[in-house]
């Protein structure tokens, strides 16, 4: 008896394996690899707002090259624009057009048009992206000046797939420039939205033939809509205050000669200190930065001379001040949002005060006075110290 029972058990166990029947199996070449999506806002006659959904598929055959053969002019990507009452439905609707239904596991970039971001609550708009299990939390979010579908169809020569090209440009933030805010992933996006705090999103726009990511879009935490944008200088200033400007060039002007001095950030540290005096909240921002002297047009400049270096540091400091003040003027005074983490500093240093002001923080924030101190240290001047034009 025991043996029969045992063998029945074994058979059951084995059959479980096969009754599963490859239920999730879909071969890699049979699915549409969506690498970028764009969300636009479509004027519609109906009462509801209709988003327009653009999915960018990679065409691996063309991209992988040699297997493709003759058709060398074929595009390595395919854009599909659907307008339905929901993004999810639009995604499913894509299956009526393409043989390969979209798979979002490799989604890299999400582009939202400025128009959509300004008029639709983003938490609602992006609900599909937060919810779908295939979509990673690491998808980079961008806001576009023009229509998202338009941005997604501008191809580069080196990176033939627009979405992948956007992806690699956004990654430059950490290495080469501070003229865009730090990369904002879908995860960060959802986190900030849930906390109702305001934040910056990288902004993409057309630039000659191609695209450029520069400046920032400001999303207000309360309304969860885009309320304005920062230009490159203002963005740079905010990046310095938050300490995110890990690289990038700052060009100061020498007062005496009216010639430029270019400084490259190598290391930048910022600390925001809050001080509460009765009802008044004030801040001191200390920026310490070290870097390189990368270019100067001053005749007879002499980097071996301590005095010259000190002077250069001073000029650069002035430029830093200007950028940060511009950034603060725009965000604090004009847009009245806290995107640089002043509230966070208050929460950490004065939790009791923060509890009181938390509710209407963005109304209180514009009144806060902010002092900025910058300390620039030129560590090195690279391979030329002194100009030899005597």
């Amino acid at each position: 008896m025991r043996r029969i029972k045992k063998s029945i058990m074994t058979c059951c166990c084995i059959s479980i394996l096969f009754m599963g029947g490859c239920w999730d199996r879909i071969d890699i070449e049979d699915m549409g690899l969506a690498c970028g999506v764009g969300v636009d806002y479509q004027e519609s006659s109906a009462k509801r707002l209709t988003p327009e959904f653009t999915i960018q598929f990679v065409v691996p055959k063309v991209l992988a090259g040699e297997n493709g053969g003759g058709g060398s002019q074929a595009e390595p990507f395919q854009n599909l624009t659907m307008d339905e009452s929901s993004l999810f439905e639009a995604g499913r609707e894509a299956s009526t057009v393409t043989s390969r239904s979209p798979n979002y596991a490799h989604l890299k970039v999400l582009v939202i048009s400025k128009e959509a971001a300004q008029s639709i609550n983003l938490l609602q708009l992006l609900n599909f992206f937060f919810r779908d299990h295939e979509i990673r939390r690491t998808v980079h979010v961008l806001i576009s000046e023009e229509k998202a579908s338009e941005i997604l169809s501008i191809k580069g020569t080196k990176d033939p797939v627009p979405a992948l090209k956007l992806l690699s440009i956004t990654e430059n933030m950490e290495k080469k420039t501070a003229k865009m805010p730090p990369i904002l992933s879908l995860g960060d996006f959802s986190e900030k939205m849930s906390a109702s705090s305001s934040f910056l999103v990288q902004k993409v726009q057309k630039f000659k033939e191609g695209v450029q990511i520069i400046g920032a879009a400001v999303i207000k935490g309360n309304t969860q809509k885009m309320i304005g944008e920062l230009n490159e200088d203002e963005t740079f200033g905010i990046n310095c205050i938050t300490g995110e400007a890990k690289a990038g060039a700052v060009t100061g002007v020498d007062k005496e000669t009216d010639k430029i001095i270019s400084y490259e950030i190598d290391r930048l540290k910022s600390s925001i200190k809050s001080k509460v005096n009765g009802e008044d909240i004030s801040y001191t921002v200390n920026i310490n930065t070290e870097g390189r002297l990368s270019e100067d047009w001053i005749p007879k400049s002499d980097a071996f001379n301590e005095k010259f270096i000190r002077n250069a540091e001073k000029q650069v400091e002035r430029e830093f001040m200007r950028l940060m003040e511009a950034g603060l003027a725009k965000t604090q005074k004009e847009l009245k949002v806290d995107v640089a983490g002043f509230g966070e500093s208050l929460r950490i240093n004065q939790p009791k005060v923060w509890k009181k002001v938390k509710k209407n923080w963005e109304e209180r924030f514009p009144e806060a006075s902010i002092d900025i101190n910058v300390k620039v240290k030129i560590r090195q001047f690279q391979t030329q110290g002194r100009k030899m034009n005597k």
Partner: protein
Amino acid sequence: MNRWAWLQKKKKQTKNGHQQVKTHGTDVFFSSSLDSNLEQLQNILGNNPDIAIRRFYINVYKVNAAVVFIKGLADKEQIHEQILKSIMLELQMRECYVKEDRATGSDIKEIIKDHVITLTDVEENNKIEDCVMEVLNGDTALLIDNVDTSLLLGTKKWPSRQIEEPITEATVRGAREGFVENILVNMSLIRKRIRDPHLVLDKYTIGRRSQTPVMVAYIKDITNDSIIQEVKKRLEKIDIDQIPESGIIEQFIEDDFLSPFPQLLTTERPDKVASGLLEGRVAILVDGTPFVLLLPVTITSMLQGPEDYYERWFVGTLIRFMRFGAAIVSLFGPSLYVALVSYHPGLIPTDLVISIAGSREGVPFPTIVEALLMEITIEILREAGVRLPKPIGQTVGIVGGLVIGEAAVTAGLVSPMMVIVVAVTAISSFSLPQYGAAIAIRILRFGMMLSAAVLGLFGIIMFAMAITIHLVKLKSFGVDYTSPFVPYQFNDWKDAILRLPYSVIKERPEMLKPKDSTRIK
């Protein structure tokens, strides 16, 4: 109850069912008549051309005598020089030994045994049966008229191959000697390496008809008695007509015949056997094969090669690491590819996904069919290459690898990525030093691929768990197969995945429970 014990129990039951009839009746002894003795021998040995019976006359004592031997197994030169010449010529010259004409048969026998024959092995024997056995082993029987015993003279000279480099286990560094088919030579190869009186070689004769000599070798004061007893017990139970190779013995005495993993280690290298014996293992030598069995084994010994010890310790350790990696690749390689490509494309980096998808474009089969196709092709190629003579075998390898692979890709049957996966897997499996272990992994790889095709990564995990459960349960002669990891013996970790310097490994492996554990003082 392990499977071996179960099998033995079943066997016992069937034995009790059928009453076994033993053919051996009462022992037959030699008579004092030479003619009748010879007739008896002739009856037993038959009229075969390789049996030589040489009659002669001992002039001094005026008696007839004869030598019986097998041509080819006995050394003709020795028979001629040490036996016939001594008795027929020299005995006559040495007149001092001629006592009187009336010497009795036993006197003659004693004189011949003690004063005439100049061989080392001389034995008296009065049972015909035993005499026949020894003659069939290559000894020479000397029968004298009026003497009712035979003298068995050691003239064994079995045909034997020269000692050559072991083909299946070549090393860059290390002895170039390999075992041969002759058990006498093999014994000497071991003895040569362990000149220790405590080295014991217990002789068994297995095979009702083949009467194959089998030696169980161990070191008396190192090896744990329970292992020796277990080996002996299992060997004694073998009742088969012939033992052509040590593999037969392996299959009879292994613990679990359903396991894909080898529970004994086979080797052609005397140095490996010698160091195994000194670790506290038991070796089984079988006549007629260069493959010696070494036991008990654990999973770690499947991935160790002699060079790990001969090279400096970090070289040994790194090579061992690499081998472990290769084992994992050859077990999981194709199944991981199948699972990732058909179930979890999200786990592959985007650029790789694009190039895999691009290369799979136009391939008509699902990944699992593609993988099985290539894997089976490579198994066939390997099998074909092994059987063919060396130069042709290489050609087959090239034709198979390059031509078929390339052609299959061009024809669009398989994707280039699959060819890479299969090639890497095949090469990884070649890097395992133990052929038996490599086969086990090859078998399991197919199971792994199927479960990957059915359930993706989940299936792989399930299958790996099943293997692990089996391994943990498996024992080799009372030693846990997964030692030193699962019965946690941290001391043995020094020589498991790592191979630490000798100054650190001062003790013999704990898992073998040696009587004397000090290796280095």
